[in-house]
Structures are given as C-alpha cells and as structure tokens.
C-alpha cells in the first residue's frame, strides 16, 4: 500500500506522517494525531461538524484528503482556547447556552470564528447565512445565533 509523506502544521505544531492518499483530513486529525475535538458527522460534506481552518479559511475536513493539506496550516478546536482561557466565541457559547449535546459545536465555533474575522458586527441574517452549512440536531439554532451575536460584542469590546 503506497503512502505519501506529508508535513502538516496543526495548531502551531508541525507533524510529519506517512498517509494513504485516501486518508481524510478528518481521520488524520482524529486517528493519527489523536485530536478528537474535530467531529465527524455525515462524512459527506453536509453537516459541518468536521469544519476546521485550513490556511486561514474554513474547510470541511471530511472533504479534504490529508495529502491535500501537505504544507498547510490547520487550526482545530483544540487550538482555539482552553477551559481556563476560552476564546471569546467559546465564552459566548458558554454564557448564552449555545449548545446542548455539543456534537456540532466544534464546527459551529470554527465557522463563527471565520465569520467574525470577516464581519465583526454581523446581523442575525448574516449569522444564519454563515451557519447554514452547519447542522445542529438539538435544534438549538436560536441560542447559537444569540451566542455568535454575543461573541461579536465581546470581541468588539476586547478590541476597543
């Protein structure tokens, strides 16, 4: 079985691995690097749970082969913040009850971070459009939208 040597930087740390070409980036992160914060839901690009940052923009890690990420900078939920030092988006989801079971949350957070980078003061419609590719099966969209609006406020105050 042929393997390709790749070098991928994840949350600032560079990993060298040999992978099968068919290895999905989502499985590479979870199974090879043991970074299980990135979740795999549908595995065909519909649910958004596996969303990560690739070279500064969001990507579906289940629709990316690990070999395509050779040389790329990946950010996952593990790199966003910690329990002691949460990212403002995490803080906002915590305060506004932006999750129930938490399965969709890593993807929602990465998507929200990208949205707030390009639009620091999004309207409710902007937020709904941005998370339209992320499914929450607990039907918690209302509090997710509230959380992202709150996060925008926290980040604007932070930056002020």
């Amino acid at each position, binding site marked *: 079985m042929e393997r390709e040597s790749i070098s991928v930087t994840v949350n600032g740390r560079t990993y060298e691995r040999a992978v099968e070409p068919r290895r999905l980036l989502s499985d590479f992160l979870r199974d090879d690097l043991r970074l299980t914060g990135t979740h795999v839901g549908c595995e065909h690009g519909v649910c958004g749970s596996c969303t990560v940052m690739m070279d500064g*923009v969001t990507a*579906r890690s289940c*629709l990316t082969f690990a*070999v395509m990420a050779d040389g790329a900078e990946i950010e996952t939920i593990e790199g966003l913040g910690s329990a002691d030092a949460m990212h403002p988006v995490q803080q906002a989801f915590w305060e506004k009850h932006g999750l129930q079971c938490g399965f969709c949350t890593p993807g929602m957070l990465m998507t929200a971070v990208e949205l707030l980078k390009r639009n620091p003061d999004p309207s409710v419609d902007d937020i709904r459009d941005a998370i339209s590719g992320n499914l929450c099966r607990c039907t918690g969209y209302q509090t997710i939208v509230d959380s992202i609006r709150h996060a925008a406020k926290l980040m604007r105050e932070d930056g002020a």
Partner: protein
Amino acid sequence: MKPPRFRYLRAGSVDGAVQALADNPDARILAGGQSLIAMMNLRLVRPACLIDINRVPDLGYIREEGDGVAIGALARHNEVKHSELVRARCPLLTEAYESIAHHTVRNRGTLGGNLCHADPSSETPAVMIAVGATLVLQSVGGTRAVGAEDFFLGTYETAARQDEMLVEIRLPGRGADGWAFAEISNRHGDFAIAVIATTLSLENGRCAAARVVASGVGEHAARLVPAEQALVGGPVDETRLDAAAAAAAGAVDPHSDSHADAAYRRDAVAALTRRTVRRAAERCG
C-alpha cells in the same frame, strides 16, 4: 463511509496534469473535491487515480478577456462570487452565487470542478448556457473550445474526454442584456429542486433574443426553446409571460424524488420562468 483506495499524483503544471491524464486512462482531476470526495466517501464513484491540480500555480485567475472574463480552472467559488469583474460583466453568475452552496464549501470548491461534475441540479451549468460561455479543454493533443450548450450531455456527463482537462471558462461581455436567476430549494444553499436562468434583449420594446435555461428538472441543464420562442418578437407583457411560462412547463420532463414530485417541479419551472423573464425585461432598461 471511507473513500476507496486510489493512486495519487500531484500536478505542478497544466501540461503535467494533461500528460498524467494521457498516461493514466483511469485517472480523474481533483480540484476542490467538494463534490468528488463526497461521492467517493459514499462510494458512488471509484476513480483508480486522482491527479491533484491544487498546487498548479497561476490557475486561479479571474481576468479581463476582451469584453468578457476568463476564469482559470482553480478559481474558487468564493473568489468568483465576490469578483467585481464578474459582477460587472456577468452579473447573472453573481446573482446565482447567492443560491450556491455554503461559505465553507465555496472556500474550496471551484467553478471549473463544479461544471465538470455536471450535477443535474447544479446552478452553474444553467448560468453558463444562459450567457453563452465557452469552456476551454486541454489535452496533450492541444486545446479546443466547447460552447456551454454543447458541454453538458447527461447526468454527471460532459463533452470532456477522459484525457481532457477544463483549463478555462470564458464569459462573454454583457452588453445591454437583461438577466435574472431564480431557484427553489428546500433550504438555502441546498441542491436545487428547480432553477431558471434567463437572459434577454429588447429592441424598441420588443424581445429580440431570449435564453431560458433550466436545471434540476432533467438529465442536465438545457435551454427551454419553446419558452424562448414564445417571447421573441413582441413586448414582454402578461400575455407573453403566460405563454412563456406555459411553454417552459411543457418543455421539461422532470423526475419525482423525496424532495418534490414531477408536477411540483413543472409548476416551479413555470413560476420561475415568469419571475426571471419579468425581472430580466425590467433590467434591460
């Protein structure tokens, strides 16, 4: 599920990619992968070899070409969606992008890959046919240009031979034409139940030329010629809108699935034809 095994080749240039296609008759091009990898994960397709073109330099351009726009094979959806040049010269495509996929998918997916995938419910083929785009295909034998109308042959089937790669999309200049795009889907950004893309020209208040193109209601995107004929030669008034809508509905033979039955799709085609033709005529101003 997990994708089946395949051989992986990384192209460093367009010449390298088409040479690899010639050398590997079982190979396919891998661009953004937003449709191909999903279908591989579902094991609906099993290419034995993928040629990754994501590292080919200078293939993601969007640039002026005469009155029109030339778009390289690696231009990502979001780049095309937000291109001011595309908005100025092919606003129908910009309008269609309001209904195409989600932000994250558009970050990676390419317009060229989307066209080559030829999904029967995809929006972009309808736009390409409506504006009269040209697709440039390259193989080791050279390049050839294929009109969008002749490119889509069936479900997931195009005029590109196995050894050919789509290298450029050419959009013609807009001129004074009117245009409009409308879609019905279950959720924003989802696969379309029905799509109509319309372009038309008025001369002295009369419709001089029209293209009414449907997607999602047949094997592939296609012009609804009877609807176009119902429009040309007279003013775009209620009588002609009625005639065009009825002709459009009669020109399609849609399928039924869990999202919508054939009768609903037929009604949708009539409604979207009326909506887009009216809008396009207003925009002719």
